[in-house]
């Protein structure tokens, strides 16, 4: 996966961790479809569960987001880029799910999110950011601008992965002993911050690598030309 191409070992570990954690989130979401028991999340929401718009948004959001997380992973693995048709299909799937389902439904639920105003604003920022980065990624590839497309899609998938980092922060802060609501709010903002920082680091790393490859290719070309002369 495009994490740190200069450090393949770290990149491989992060790739496996990302896929495994995304899969875990998807599996954990199944409880909402198969269980007749009230889950903690629903019980917490109280009368909101009675609202048809909220319940629709919730189910659409979890379904689309889980598929996005899983569909996005192969799109971020450079070795998978050789399968262009697959990349195209998964890419469209990702665009459709994020732009029309996952991000808008997230925004529908954001105002009533746990954590009051800070929580609501946090989720709204994530939703808008996710939509915006994905839309830019789509616009870039429509104009056949590969580099901006890669950069925007890294940002988009990084925001998608904030679902994973959010849960990791929540678990970590729980063990620190933080109060539930504070933990929730802090986890939202920390996951957003982590997504932004990680995506920018990846893009920087990728650009440096590209520059290095370009320079070494020029160097090779010059040397070959020098030898041939």
């Amino acid at each position, binding site marked *: 996966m495009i994490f740190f191409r200069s450090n393949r070992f770290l990149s491989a570990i992060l790739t496996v961790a990302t896929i495994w954690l995304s899969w875990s989130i998807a599996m954990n979401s199944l409880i909402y479809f198969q269980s007749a*028991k009230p889950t*903690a999340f629903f019980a*917490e929401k*109280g009368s909101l569960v009675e609202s*048809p*718009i909220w319940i*629709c948004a919730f189910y659409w959001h979890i379904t689309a987001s889980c598929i996005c997380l899983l569909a996005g992973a192969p799109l971020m693995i450079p070795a998978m880029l050789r399968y262009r048709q697959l990349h195209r299909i998964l890419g469209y799937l990702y*665009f*459709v799910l994020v732009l029309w*389902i996952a991000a808008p439904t997230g925004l529908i639920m954001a105002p009533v999110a746990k954590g009051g105003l800070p929580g609501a604003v946090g989720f709204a920022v994530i939703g808008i950011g996710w939509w915006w980065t994905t839309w830019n990624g789509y616009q870039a590839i429509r104009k056949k601008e590969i580099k901006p497309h890669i950069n925007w899609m890294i940002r988009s998938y990084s925001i998608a992965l904030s679902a994973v980092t959010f849960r990791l922060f929540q678990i970590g802060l729980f063990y620190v002993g933080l109060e539930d609501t504070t933990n929730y709010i802090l986890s939202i903002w920390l996951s957003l911050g982590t997504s932004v920082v990680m995506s920018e680091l990846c893009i920087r790393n990728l650009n440096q690598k590209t520059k290095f490859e370009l320079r070494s290719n020029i160097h090779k070309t010059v040397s070959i030309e020098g030898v041939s002369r």
Partner: protein
Amino acid sequence: MNRILAISMIVVVCTFMVSYFWVSGMQNQQDHTPLAKTTNVESNQTTSTSDPPVELLDADSAKELLLKSIREKSSEYRMLSRARIRRESRIETVYIQNTTEPNAPYFLGTMTISKNAENSTVAFAIDRVTQSIYIFANSQWHNQKDWILY
């Protein structure tokens, strides 16, 4: 925007609308079903729709029901919480929230359980209609049948 994205947007919006109307239709249907009928269907009794509805629990009855149920269930050990409360624990206080909404399906609340002067808070929910009790422990809700006891 190209055709694929435009068509998918229309399809998604339409499907979302259908699901919205389907869910609200289902909920309307549930709202018009007498509570008595729902309860009696579960206990395999026949009833007419004209039966009077079951009287909803008030906060005090819910509290009493919860305490009674916990005491019965935990004859040997007290109920599980993240803090692993053991037999010497005792229920200190029970708070019932959400009582202002008579139509809410659950009483939600927390109770403080003390063990060796250390307090621990456990969340619970009581189904108003079936009077089932759910306890939040180990990151999920357990009903009376599957409470995990330590």
